[in-house]
C-alpha cells in the first residue's frame, strides 16, 4: 500500500464534508453580487472641505459673540480660505483682551497679527483639520446607515473607502431614484428669519446685504407640472437646526387635501430656543429651509411653546416619509456627491445568472467529454477532480463571504479550463514515463512527482496576477480575481490530493498492474 493512503483519503473526505457543510443550502450560502441580483452600487464623495469650512464659520461666530461679551469692539470676523478666521477689531485698545478670548479656542492658533491695525488671524491646527475631515466621513457613514436602516433594505453594505469616500451597496432595491435621493440628501434643516428690510426685487437684481442671501421656494403647478421659483431674502444667521429634533412624523396636510406634511418636535433645548425665537420675533416671518431650498416662511403670530412645527411643501406620501426619515436620521455633516453609480434591475440580473450558468455548464460538459475521450479512465478521474474543484471553490467563496459577480462566473468558467491543465500536465508526464519503458506504478510515481514543480510554478504565477487584480480592481473585477484565485488554490489541492488518491486506490492497491487506462 502506498504511504498514508488513509490519511490522505481522510483529508479529502474532510474537505469535501466541510465544503458541503458551508454550501448547504446553496441559495443562502453564496452572496450574489449586485450585477446578478439587481441593486444599487454607489460611491459617494464627501465634501470634507465644506465641513471644515462650516466648522470654521461656526468658530468665527462663536469668537465674535465671545469678543462682544468681553466688551471688545469688533469690526468684522470672517473666514478666509478653508480654516482661517480673520478678526478685525474696531480699535487696537482692547488688543490683549481680544487675544485672551482667542486663546480659548484651542483648535486654533494665532497666526499673522498686526496690533496697530487691530487685526489678527486664527488658523485651525492641522491636526484638527485632519480630525474634522475624518469626522465628516465617519458621521456620514453613520447617518447614511441610519437612513438606509429606516428605509428598509435587506443586507445593505455601507463602508468607508479611502479618505473621503463612502461605498454603499443596496441589493434588491426596486426604486433606485428614491433610494439615491434619500441617501444623497444633506438634510440640513434650518430655521432663519426673513430679511424684511431688503426688497426682493433689489435682491434679485444682485444687491443683497452681506448678512442676507437670496433663496427660492420651488412650487410645482399641479396642472401644468411647471416649476415656479419664488425668491425670498433670508438672513444668513441660523436660529435653530435639525440637530435639535427628536421626532419627525408624516401627516396629511389639513389645508391641502392630497398633500402630506412632516410634523417635527424639538428636544428640550430646541423647544426653549424655538419658544424664545418666536417670542422675540412676533410679527416677522420664519423661514424653514432644507438644503438651501426654502419650504415655507410662515408669519409668527405668537410665541410657540412646546417645540412643535410642521414642514409643508406639496409632498406626496413617499416624499414626506423619506423626508421624515432623513430628518430623524440627522443631517449629513457635509454634502456628498455621487462619484460612481451602478444600478442593475432585477430582470437583468436574472438574465445574467442564466447566461452565466449556461456558460459554465457548457464549458464543463465540453471539457468532461474531451477528457473522457482522450484519457478514458484517467479522464474520468480528472472529471471527478474537476467536480470536487468546483465544490471547493464555491464552498470557499461561501465560507469567506465572498461575492459572486458576473465576471466571477467568468473566472469560474476559466478555472475549469485551467484546472484541467493540471491534470493534463500530470497525465502527459505519466504517458512519457510509460513510453520510456517504466512500469505503470513507477510511471505514476514519476509522473506526479515531476509534474509537481511545473504545476506549482504555473499556479503561483497566475495567482500572483489574480492577487494583483484583486488589489487594483474594483467591484466586478475583484469578483473575477477572487474566483480565479480560490479556483487555482482548489485546483492545486485536488490535483495533488484527489487525483493522486484515486490513482493510488485504482492502481497501487492491486498486486499487479498491467496497463494504465490513460
Amino acid at each position, binding site marked *: 500500500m502506498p504511504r498514508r493512503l488513509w490519511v490522505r483519503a481522510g483529508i479529502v473526505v474532510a474537505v469535501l464534508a466541510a465544503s458541503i457543510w458551508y454550501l448547504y443550502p446553496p441559495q443562502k450560502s453564496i452572496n450574489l453580487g449586485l450585477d446578478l441580483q439587481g441593486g444599487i452600487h454607489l460611491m459617494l464623495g464627501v465634501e470634507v472641505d465644506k465641513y471644515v469650512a462650516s466648522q470654521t464659520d461656526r468658530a468665527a461666530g462663536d469668537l465674535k459673540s465671545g469678543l462682544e461679551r468681553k466688551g471688545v469692539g469688533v469690526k468684522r470676523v470672517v473666514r478666509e480660505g478653508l480654516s482661517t478666521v480673520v478678526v478685525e477689531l474696531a480699535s487696537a485698545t482692547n488688543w490683549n483682551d481680544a487675544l485672551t478670548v482667542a486663546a480659548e479656542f484651542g483648535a486654533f492658533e494665532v497666526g499673522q497679527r498686526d496690533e496697530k491695525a487691530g487685526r489678527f488671524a486664527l488658523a485651525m491646527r492641522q491636526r484638527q483639520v485632519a480630525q474634522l475631515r475624518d469626522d465628516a466621513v465617519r458621521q456620514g457613514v453613520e447617518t447614511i446607515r441610519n437612513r438606509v436602516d429606516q428605509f428598509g433594505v435587506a443586507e445593505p453594505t455601507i463602508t468607508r473607502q479611502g479618505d473621503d469616500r463612502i461605498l454603499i451597496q443596496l441589493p434588491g432595491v426596486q426604486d433606485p*431614484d428614491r433610494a439615491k435621493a434619500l441617501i444623497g440628501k444633506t438634510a440640513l434643516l434650518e430655521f432663519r428669519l426673513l430679511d424684511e428690510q431688503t426688497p426682493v426685487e433689489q435682491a434679485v437684481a444682485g444687491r443683497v446685504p452681506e448678512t442676507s442671501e437670496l433663496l427660492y421656494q420651488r412650487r410645482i403647478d399641479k396642472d401644468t407640472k411647471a416649476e415656479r421659483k419664488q425668491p425670498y431674502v433670508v438672513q444668513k444667521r441660523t436660529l435653530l437646526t435639525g440637530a435639535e429634533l427628536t421626532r419627525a412624523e408624516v401627516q396629511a396636510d389639513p389645508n391641502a387635501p392630497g398633500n402630506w406634511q412632516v410634523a417635527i418636535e424639538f428636544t428640550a433645548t430646541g423647544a426653549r430656543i424655538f419658544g424664545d425665537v418666536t417670542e422675540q420675533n412676533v410679527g416677522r416671518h420664519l423661514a424653514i429651509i432644507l438644503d438651501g431650498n426654502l419650504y415655507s416662511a410662515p408669519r409668527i403670530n405668537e410665541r410657540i411653546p412646546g417645540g412643535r412645527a410642521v414642514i409643508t411643501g406639496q409632498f406626496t406620501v413617499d416624499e414626506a416619509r423619506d423626508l421624515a426619515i432623513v430628518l430623524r436620521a440627522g443631517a449629513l455633516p457635509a454634502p456628498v*456627491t455621487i462619484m460612481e453609480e451602478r444600478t442593475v434591475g432585477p*430582470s*437583468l440580473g436574472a438574465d*445574467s445568472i442564466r447566461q452565466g450558468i449556461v456558460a459554465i455548464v457548457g464549458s464543463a460538459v465540453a*471539457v468532461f467529454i474531451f477528457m473522457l475521450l482522450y484519457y478514458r479512465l484517467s479522464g474520468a478521474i480528472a472529471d471527478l477532480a474537476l467536480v470536487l474543484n468546483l465544490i471547493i471553490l464555491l464552498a470557499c467563496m461561501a465560507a469567506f463571504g465572498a461575492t459572486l459577480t*458576473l*465576471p466571477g462566473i*467568468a473566472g469560474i468558467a476559466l478555472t475549469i479550463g485551467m484546472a484541467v491543465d493540471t491534470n493534463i500536465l500530470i497525465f502527459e508526464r505519466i504517458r512519457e514515463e510509460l513510453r520510456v519503458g517504466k512500469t505503470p506504478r513507477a510511471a505514476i510515481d514519476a509522473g506526479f512527482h515531476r509534474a509537481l514543480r511545473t504545476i506549482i510554478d504555473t499556479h503561483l504565477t497566475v495567482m*500572483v496576477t489574480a492577487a494583483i487584480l484583486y488589489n487594483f480592481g474594483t467591484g466586478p473585477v475583484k469578483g473575477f480575481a477572487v474566483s480565479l484565485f480560490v479556483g487555482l488554490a482548489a485546483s492545486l489541492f485536488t490535483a495533488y490530493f484527489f487525483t493522486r488518491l484515486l490513482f493510488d486506490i485504482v492502481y497501487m492497491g492491486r498486486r499487479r498492474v498491467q496497463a494504465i487506462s490513460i
Partner: protein
Amino acid sequence: MIEMFRSPNFNFIGRRRWAYVISALMLVFGLTALAVKGLHYDIDFTGGTLVQIRFEQPPTVAAIRAGLSRVQLGESVIQQFGDPQEYIVRAPLSAGSSEELAKRVTAALGQETALGKFELRRVEFVGPQVGRDLQLQAIYAVLFGLAGILLYIAWAFKSLKGGVAAIAAVFHDMVFCLGALSITGRDFSLPVLAALLTIIGYSVNDTIVAYDRLRENRSKFSNKGKSFADQMNDAVNQTLSRTVLTALTVFLSTAILLVFGGKTLEDFAFVLFLGVITGTYSTIYIAGAIIVDWTQAIESRVGRRKKAVAKA
C-alpha cells in the same frame, strides 16, 4: 490511447527566423490598429453615463435617436446590445449626473410613442475622479502584474533572461489582442482589463511549463554537448502535447463563454479567446526564440573574448 503527438520532434526553434517575421507582422498589426483606430475606452475609464434599456418591441435606432434628441445628451452613442430589444445609450460626462440623466432619458423615450413600453435595466455612472482612478489602477495592475511575473521567473529559474523573454511574449500577446479589440470596434472596459490580465497569467503559464522542462533536462546526462537551441527545442517538443491539449480545453471554455456568456461577457471572452491562441504561439516563438538568440549572442561574445585572450 489517443495520441496527438508521439514523441514529436519538430524543428520549432530552427525556424524561429520565420517566426520573427510573423511576430513582427502581428505586432505591426496591433500597433497600427492602436495608432490609426485607437482604443475606445468604456465609461469605466472616461467617466460618463451608460443606460441599458429593454423595449417590449424591437425598436429602430432612428426612433430611439429621435426620442433622445429631445434631451441634450452631448455626444451620446446608441448601440444594440445582445438581442434586438435591448439597447445601450452611452453619454459623456458633460451630459450631467446619472440620476438626472436617467430621468431625462425615461421622459424623452416615453414621449416617443413609436417605441412602445420599455424598462431601464441598468444605469451606470462613473464620475471624472473615479474614471481617472480606474485608469491609474488599470495601468498599475498591468505593470505590477508584469513585474510580479518577471520577479517570479527570475527567482524560480534563476534567470533574468527567462523573465525578460517571458514578458516580451506577454507584451506581444497584449498588443495583438488590443489591436484586435480596436479593429473590431469593441470597448476597452474593466472586464476587458480583467481578460488582459488573465492572458498575462495564461501566456506566462505556458512559458513556464517549457522553462521547467528545460531546467529539468539540463541536469540530465543525455543533454551534454547539445546546443542551447537544441535544448530549448527539445523542451518545447516534450511539452508540446500538453501545450496543445491545454490550449484546446481552455479554448473550448472560452469559445463557449463567447457564444453563451451573453453580451456582457462577450468582449471579455473575445480577448481571452484570442489570447489563448497567441499565448500558445508566443511561448514557443517569442519566449523560446528570444532566450535562445540571447544566450547564443552571449556565448559567441564570450567565445570571441576567449579567442582574443588565447591569441594574446
